């Protein structure tokens, strides 16, 4: 997720102080990792520089907390372009696991065991997420489901690959 565009979207949902913005961010997107105040303010600074947001009548007192921010017309256009643009699936096809599997086969190492270890780890992670999901609010449950479906995709790849290891072995062998 592009954190600065997510922040821009949250400002676009209604003018806000930096402090409130952090809480909006953390409650909606902070399941995995909350955003530090420092990063909120540096991102707000960049968005002002780019003309995507502006400050709204300064309230008395000093310090960044006193300012309210609102989205500009340019900012809204930028945001909408991002929202409407389809996300390309990750082109990162050659993951670490793919490389490890292929190399294990080339090196006559135990590729099956490697996949089993990975499978156990992924299932363990899924079990943890599923436990977390049980009492989580809806937004967080949806975020967890997203993670679960992606891990599931990795597991399906592992199943497919472990069923084809023998064929793969012939294909990656350098000494024909």
């Amino acid at each position, binding site marked *: 997720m592009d954190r600065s565009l997510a922040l821009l979207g949250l400002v676009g949902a209604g003018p806000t102080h930096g402090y409130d913005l952090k809480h909006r961010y953390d409650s909606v997107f902070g399941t995995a990792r909350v955003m530090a105040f420092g990063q909120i303010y540096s991102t707000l600074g960049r968005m002002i520089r780019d003309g995507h947001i502006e400050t709204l009548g300064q309230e008395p007192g000093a310090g960044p907390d006193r300012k309210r921010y609102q989205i500009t017309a340019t900012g809204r256009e930028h945001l909408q372009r991002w929202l409407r643009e389809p996300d390309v699936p990750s082109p990162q096809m050659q993951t670490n696991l793919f490389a490890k599997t292929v190399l294990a086969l080339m090196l006559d190492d135990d590729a099956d065991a490697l996949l*089993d*270890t990975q*499978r*156990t780890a*992924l*299932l363990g992670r*899924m*079990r943890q*997420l*599923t436990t977390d999901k049980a009492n989580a609010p809806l937004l967080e449950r949806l975020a967890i489901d997203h993670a*679960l*479906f992606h*891990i*599931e995709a990795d*597991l*399906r790849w592992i*199943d497919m690959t472990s*069923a084809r290891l023998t064929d793969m072995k012939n294909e990656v062998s350098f000494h024909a």
Partner: protein
Amino acid sequence: MPDPIIAATGLHKSFGSTEALRGVDLTVERGEVLAVMGPSGSGKSTLIHCLAGVLAPDEGTVVMDGIDLTALNADARARVRLTRIGFVFQFGQLLPDLTAVDNVALPLLMASTARRRANVQAHEWLDRLGLADQAAKVPGTMSGGQAQRVAIARALVTSPAVLFADEPTGSLDSVSAENVLTAMLDVVRDVGTTVMLITHDARTAAYADREVIVRDGRLSGAHAGVAL
């Protein structure tokens, strides 16, 4: 203190020249929810059929809730199944002409429970699975998810020691599958029923306490035995 409800050792089972089970040892703790995974044809259904006393293994022993199933003849095993074991399959297990409540009451009637008492208990179990308003319907007029929940109520109505579920949500979409599964697991965890849940689906398996993987009639290495 470990308190196994199922202890299977050295299970072998062949169908003609097909060796469906080739030496399975498995211990399941009381109250555990265990996922059974593995490729199609690897022997998952054969394994739970042996553990449930539906099939007699060619070799090995199965002790279920203190009873050595492998020492019993087919009739004695059938009696054990009727009261100690519940089954849920992927679909098609309800009698189409009976209402939900009559379907659920059936195992009690077969175990000679009085009609009135069976009905009361059947209603209770439908209620527990969120189906109070479906009691008078026949299976053909229910959604797939509702029908599976009726099947679960029917499997649990005799308060079995172990529930064997073979792909119970395999024919449902993701949302209904999750609803059916969480309804089932809430109830069994509440009552303390042991569950063996066969599934191809990792998201389903993730609800279990532990998984075993069956491959070519054996449990795959790291997962066998009891979790520490």
